[in-house]
C-alpha cells in the first residue's frame, strides 16, 4: 500500500472530521435554541445532529487508523489512546487524542442516554465544549504545513460558525419558558440551608 496515500487520507479525513464536528456542535446549539420553520421541524435538527455525530466518528476512525498504520509517522496504537505519548508532534497530537476521547465519551453516553439518565448525560455532553477546541487546536498544530491556506480557511469557517452559535446561545438565555418561574418558586420552597 502506498504510504503517501495513507498520509493524505489521514489529513483529508482529519479535516473532514473537524468540519463534521463543527456542524454537529452548531446543530446541537440550534436544537437547544429550538430553531424551526414550517418545512424544518425541530426533530430534523436533532436527527441531523445525531446522524452527523455518528458520521464524525466514522471519519475520525479513518483519520486515526490511517495515521496509526502509516509507517512513516511511527505512531503506534498507544498514541491513539494515551495523550502525549507519541514521539511525533507530542503536544499537538496529544490534543487530538484528548479530543477523540472526549468525543467518544459524548457519543457513547448519548447512545445509552436512557440508561444513565438525563443529568449524567447532560454533564458529559457539556464536554463537547472542551472537545471541539482541542480538535481545532490539534488541526492547527499538526496541519499547518504547506497547505495551510486551505486548511486555515476551512478552520476559520468552522471556528466562526461555532463561536457565533455559542455566542448566540449565551445571549439568548434559557429557552425553557418555565425556567424563570421555576427557579423563583424553587427559591421560595428550598429549605436546604436551614437544616
Amino acid at each position: 500500500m502506498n504510504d503517501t496515500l495513507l498520509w493524505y487520507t489521514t489529513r483529508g479525513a482529519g479535516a473532514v472530521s473537524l468540519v463534521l464536528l463543527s456542524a454537529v456542535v452548531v446543530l446541537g446549539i440550534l436544537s437547544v435554541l429550538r430553531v424551526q420553520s414550517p418545512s424544518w421541524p425541530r426533530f430534523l435538527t436533532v436527527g441531523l445532529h445525531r446522524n452527523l455525530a455518528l458520521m464524525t466518528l466514522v471519519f475520525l476512525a479513518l483519520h486515526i487508523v490511517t495515521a496509526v498504520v502509516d509507517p512513516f509517522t511511527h505512531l503506534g496504537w498507544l498514541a491513539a489512546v494515551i495523550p502525549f505519548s507519541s514521539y511525533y508532534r507530542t503536544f499537538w497530537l496529544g490534543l487530538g487524542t484528548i479530543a477523540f476521547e472526549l468525543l467518544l465519551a459524548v457519543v457513547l453516553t448519548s447512545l445509552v442516554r436512557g440508561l444513565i439518565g438525563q443529568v449524567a448525560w447532560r454533564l458529559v455532553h457539556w464536554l463537547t465544549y472542551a472537545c471541539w477546541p482541542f480538535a481545532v487546536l490539534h488541526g492547527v498544530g499538526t496541519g499547518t504545513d504547506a497547505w495551510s491556506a486551505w486548511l486555515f480557511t476551512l478552520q476559520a469557517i468552522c471556528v466562526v460558525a461555532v463561536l457565533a452559535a455559542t455566542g448566540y446561545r449565551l445571549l439568548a438565555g434559557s429557552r425553557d419558558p418555565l425556567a424563570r418561574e421555576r427557579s423563583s418558586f424553587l427559591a421560595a420552597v428550598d429549605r436546604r440551608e436551614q437544616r
Partner: protein
Amino acid sequence: MAFRGGDDTYTMEPKDTIQDRVRARDAAMRLLNRLTAGAAVSAVVGVGLLGAIGALTIPGTPSTAATTTSTATSSTSSSSSSGLQASSSPVSSSSSSGVAVSGGS
C-alpha cells in the same frame, strides 16, 4: 416571556389536520435522509479532495515509502520529525490516486 393566554389563542383550533402533520413529518424524514446521505457523500469526496489539495500544495522533494520506513526503524523523536519535512511526496501521482481511493471507500 412567551406566555400565551390572550385572545389569539381562542381560535387556535388545530389548523393543520393530523393528515397534514403526518405528511409534513414524512417529508421531513425524507429530507433528513437526503441530507444525511448528502453529507456522507460530501464527506467522502471531501476526504479525497482535501487529501488531493494537501498533496498538490505541499512543495518539496518527493520521497518514497522506502525512505520513510527506513527512518522509522531508526527513529528518535528528532529524526522522525525531520523525516516528515523530507517526506513530502510526489505531487501529481499521489493526488490522483488519493481521489481514486476516496471514491472507492
